[in-house]
């Protein structure tokens, strides 16, 4: 779950990472007061949880009161990269002399956090690594040991920093690591860290992404993921405990396991179909969860068929079948459903589905199922 810039900056402020003076507004009525509190000239920033806001027109400069009001009003409630702008951050403009990059993320191969510093901020870290590799220092961290400020100083030294800048940047980098640890982050990034003309440093932007699997213990953040997605189907999916990704086709897909579900969609594509979604149940299938999953998809008016592809390893297939059958019956589903279901107690599950009038594929090959599905769709 990615925090909005102003939320991330609040965390930074609590940890003593300097951020520009600013105020966030969520309604036009608040704009004037916010401008007065912060002071001109301003940066007006749309708060959406995605990168590339600047290029998309989500960041504006304002030098007069009127200009600031106009830009803030224009951005508020507008749509930016698929997200409605519900918050606008008004920040005092900085006199920036240099921009650095500071980041902490996870090195998946090493299985460790990696702390990164570059004297070339403002572009993303992959770009830095490609264009200015000599400006980028990274250090993997042993978690039981932690990351020390002297190590940040060592990194600064390698990039030629000295004097008070060395002290400020290394302190900021150490604090960024603390934020990363404290909040179960998968990314904590300051890009750019603005170095002002008089040698002060400020986190001009802030990116923090929290591990969804750790939100249960990050209660101080008070995040309700379902309130943070635009797509109502996706919000519903979060509530019922499945993963949903919208695609632009018309064949609904439910699968158990990410790999199988992705493969199913790939095969549907190969057979000339197009999936309307990715919906993956994880290993916690119950009758209710399966019912909810079917209910969620059949709400989607694009659907002309639904294919369910399950394996019973940890998932109970009889319960899954009951949930599908119940949904089919109660929701009076009119589009064709096809189920492929393999694993423990598969015969019992098949029987339940067939008794409910739902066609079942008994082959283990997803290809066979998709072939049959396409025929059903054509014949329908």
């Amino acid at each position, binding site marked *: 779950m990615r925090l909005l810039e102003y939320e991330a900056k609040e965390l930074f402020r609590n940890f003593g990472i300097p951020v520009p003076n600013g105020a966030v507004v969520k309604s036009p009525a608040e704009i004037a007061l916010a401008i007065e509190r912060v002071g001109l000239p301003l940066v007006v920033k749309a708060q959406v949880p995605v990168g590339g806001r600047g290029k998309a027109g989500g960041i504006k400069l304002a030098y007069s009161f009127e200009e600031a009001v106009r830009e803030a009003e224009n951005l508020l409630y507008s749509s930016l990269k698929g997200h409605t702008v519900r918050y606008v951050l008004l920040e005092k403009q900085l006199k920036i002399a240099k921009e650095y990059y500071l980041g902490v993320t*996870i090195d*998946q*191969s090493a*299985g*460790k*956090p990696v702390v990164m510093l570059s004297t070339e901020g403002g572009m*993303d870290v*992959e770009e830095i690594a490609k264009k200015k590799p000599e400006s980028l220092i990274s250090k993997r961290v*042993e*978690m*039981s040991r932690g990351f020390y400020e002297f190590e940040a100083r060592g990194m600064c030294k390698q990039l030629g920093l000295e004097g008070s800048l060395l002290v400020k940047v290394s302190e900021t980098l150490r604090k960024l690591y603390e934020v990363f*640890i404290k909040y*179960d982050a*998968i990314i904590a990034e300051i890009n750019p860290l603005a170095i002002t003309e008089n040698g002060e440093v400020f986190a001009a932007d802030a990116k923090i992404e929290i*591990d*969804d*699997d*750790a939100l*249960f*213990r990050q209660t101080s953040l008070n995040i309700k993921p379902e309130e943070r997605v635009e797509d109502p189907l996706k919000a519903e999916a979060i509530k019922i405990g499945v*993963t949903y*990704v919208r*695609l632009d086709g018309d064949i609904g897909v439910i*699968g*158990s*396991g*990410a*790999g*199988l*579900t*992705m*493969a199913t*969609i*790939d*095969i549907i*594509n*190969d057979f000339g179909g197009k*999936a309307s979604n*990715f919906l*993956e149940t*994880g*290993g916690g299938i119950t009758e209710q969860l399966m019912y909810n999953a079917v209910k969620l998809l059949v709400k989607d008016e694009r659907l002309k068929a639904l294919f369910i592809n*399950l*394996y*019973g*390893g*940890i998932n109970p297939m009889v319960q899954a079948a009951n949930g599908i059958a119940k949904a089919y019956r109660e929701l009076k589903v009119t589009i064709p459903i096809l189920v492929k279901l*393999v*694993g*423990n107690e598969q015969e019992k599950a098949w029987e339940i589905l067939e008794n409910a009038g739902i066609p079942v594929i008994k082959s*283990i*090959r*997803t*290809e066979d199922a998709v072939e049959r599905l396409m025929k059903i769709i054509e014949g329908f």
Partner: protein
Amino acid sequence: MGILVDENTKVVVQGITGRVGSIQAKLMLDYGTKIVAGVTPGKGGTFIHNVPVYDTVEEAVAKTGADTSILFVPAAFAKDAVIEAVDAGIKLIVAIPEHVPVHDTMRMIEYAKRRNVKIIGPTTPGVISPGKTKIGIMPASVFSEGSVGIVSRSGTLLYEIAGNLSLAGIGQSTCLGIGGDPVVGTSLTEVLQMFQEDDQTKAVVIVGEIGGVQEEEAAHFIKQMNKPVVAYIAGRSAPPGQRMGHAGAIILGERGTVESKINALREAGVKVANRPADIVGIVEDIIKK
């Protein structure tokens, strides 16, 4: 032989009295797995499926000589369960739980690695050496004994592909899922190294998916392998930036696409199937040679 586990592997089930733990323990016992102990704090002294339950792994190991552990504990307790198992002298830990916070995963892997203990997972279906032992949650029926090793990043796709091979009469030496999370205890490459050393394994199937760079890293190692490797990579139609089911399956920027993985593997001499079922024909061709 197979890798990692065999008929002599002595297993302790952590969380054996839970809903999932007890069902899965029964299924493993039915398969013939040597489950010698279970652990549930506060349930020490009881029995489940005739398996003695202990309060601590230390006690379970002392009393039964268990050398391998399988975890059925809630995600929030996985880290502590791993550290307990490591301290008790367990040498292989199969970490079933999904949704383990990745910071916990990094900590538990760091702890285990420093003490030379292997972790498979988390978010793994486990490991099966067909005909010998099953330490995992996979449906046993789709596996059969033979000479193909399968290593998969996905659980259910592993079942599909193993099932396809079995139907075609091609058995497996050992099959395992390394886990779907971005950080896992044992990498694709490390499993390939084990298959390379294993006498029973004549060919290896890799089941990959989008996200991360494990397939790309594995390709490096495959260049030095003297066993044929076949692969299938799921997620050709996945949109970038979207998390496909678990944290590991996400395309970020130019990294982790199906194309980069297929290219790297092909360059290393791997035959890459377009669809799961196509694996069968490719493996058959290899075996006939």
